[in-house]
């Protein structure tokens, strides 16, 4: 599926389009089909996203969203070398999800 991601203009936080707005969590991502660029144009102009782009993602067996490229999985979670700074510091399996 196609999902949207970018950074929040004010804070720089990684954000994911959830169909109506922007979430900090990749699992909230909505499939935008071929409307991605359209949505980004509106959201960028309204300063609700900075540097947004469309990416491929898959659904895992448990329904979780998995970005196709490792870079976006790192963005979804946080630096692999600082688990304490990620979105899931207490989850020991988080790092292997990225790779």
């Amino acid at each position, binding site marked *: 599926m196609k999902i949207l991601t970018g950074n929040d203009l004010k804070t720089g*936080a990684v954000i994911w389009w959830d169909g109506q707005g922007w979430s900090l969590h990749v699992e909230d991502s909505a499939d935008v089909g071929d409307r991605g660029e359209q949505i980004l144009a509106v959201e960028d102009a309204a300063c609700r996203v900075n540097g947004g782009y469309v990416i491929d993602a898959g659904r895992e067996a448990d329904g979780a969203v998995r970005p196709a490229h490792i870079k976006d999985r790192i*963005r979804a979670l946080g630096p692999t070398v600082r688990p304490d700074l990620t979105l899931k510091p207490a989850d020991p399996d988080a790092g292997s999800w990225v790779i």
Partner: protein
Amino acid sequence: MYKYDHYDQAMVDARVEDFRDQTRRRLAGQMTDDQFKPLRLKNGLYLQLHAYMLRIAIPYGTLDSRQLRKLAHIARTYDRGYGHFTTRQNLQFHWIKLEQAPDILAELAEVEMHCIQTSGESIRNISADHYAGAAADEIMDPRPWAEMLRQMTTFHPEFSYLPRKFKICVIAAEEDRAAMRWHDFGLRIVKNPNDDGAGEIGFEVYPGGGMGRTPFIAYKARDFVPQHQIFSYLQAVLRVWNRHARRDNIHKQRMKILVHELGEEEFTRQVEAEFQRILTLKTDFPQAEYDRIAAYFEPPAFESGLPDEIDRSDPDFAVWVDQQVAEHKAPGYAIANISLKKIGGIGGDITAEQMEVVADLAERYSFDELRVAHTQNLVLPHVRKQDLYEIWQTLREAELADANLDLVTDIIACPGLDYCSLANARSIPVAQKIAERFANHERQQDIGELKIKISGCINACGHHHAGHIGILGVDRKGTENYQLLLGGSGDEHTTQAKITGPGFTEDGVVDAVERAVERYREIREPGERFLDTYRRVGMDGFKEAIYG
């Protein structure tokens, strides 16, 4: 070190308000990101993977305790409790919010710091030898010149929208501890070779170096530019490049590409013609201004009659002394290197608590002065030998006492794909695995000097082209892959590392490094470092051992 007068302070304060207004306009939607991006880059603010990154200038790598304490405060207040020292002697914070950036700049301005021109297509932070003012082999301290050129290139109206970044380095010794020839404009301070011993000061000029996708080592354009003409010469170089570089392909716009395309002779000819013209404009600064700045870099009040011996009875301390302490020009003093390459840690990273410890040490033991090396380590430049033991004990408690300077675990690595939106692969885990593989101290000592440098993409912020062993992370069909290179160097015998062959996986490259190291041990001659053995036998001497 240099202290701002009210003019310098007014300029930095104005810059803060400038950026505050630009940020306001961006957040109000009055500017597109395309328009805002060069402006925020000129204040060191990148949009990275997880947040904005802020790059703070540390001019020629010199800091005092007040400044370092402010950086610790910023780390705690605006970031996530740590910072990262870079290969250009700057400091980066990786978790910055744009809406807070103007306030951060205002806080920095309180301690005479800024982020001016630390990124974007600007004249960047001017680097210098991190042993400046302490090393016995320098003709003079290069930093007054670095400070002079810093001021003259700040907000330069003709050169603020350059084809690409422009990096300047100043050294003052035969030994090059600052990778000078890897810069766009490298300077070595010398005495005039032609003046029969009168001792006129001037510069050897080396333009056209740089790393990135197509690395080049700077060539020598001039044996001697008289000291008070150097700003004119720099303007000539900048103008020739600004006028004639390509503007259509960001990968071909560094000055090294123009030098390569015109040829050294033609580039020099154009620069010399422009130089003669610019000299007539009389834009160089006078001796009086140089003297005013140089006065800030006078040697500190070294004590005399200090003990020269170091008590080595603590064996762990002795190990640290042997590796981390360098000779100082003043009797009874030493240069103490602080490792930011703790095995298992992240190279170049430092916590706010550690910054406070180092600030205290600098204030108490080093005439309130600290240096940042381009190797991502720190230096206390002027410590009394009799204070080394206490310093070491303090460092050890703060986990800053690894004794690995220039050894195999003293690895330079860029932040890589864990942090950087430009990266193709992660670099920090590779550095960590290599360091862990070679952690044993006796093994490290046996291997001796071995400079490993790792970049996560072709932008080469990890300086892999200058590594005795270099590693370049690439994206190979969506997975991380690593190229291995051998034989690079940033010292005065500057060379570019050569690729060994096909790339490796992350674990594969660690194994390959180990095979290369074992091969070196197998064939080395007495006194040879890894780099020397490689230079003697070439890639042929290593390739089979690496690939089997």
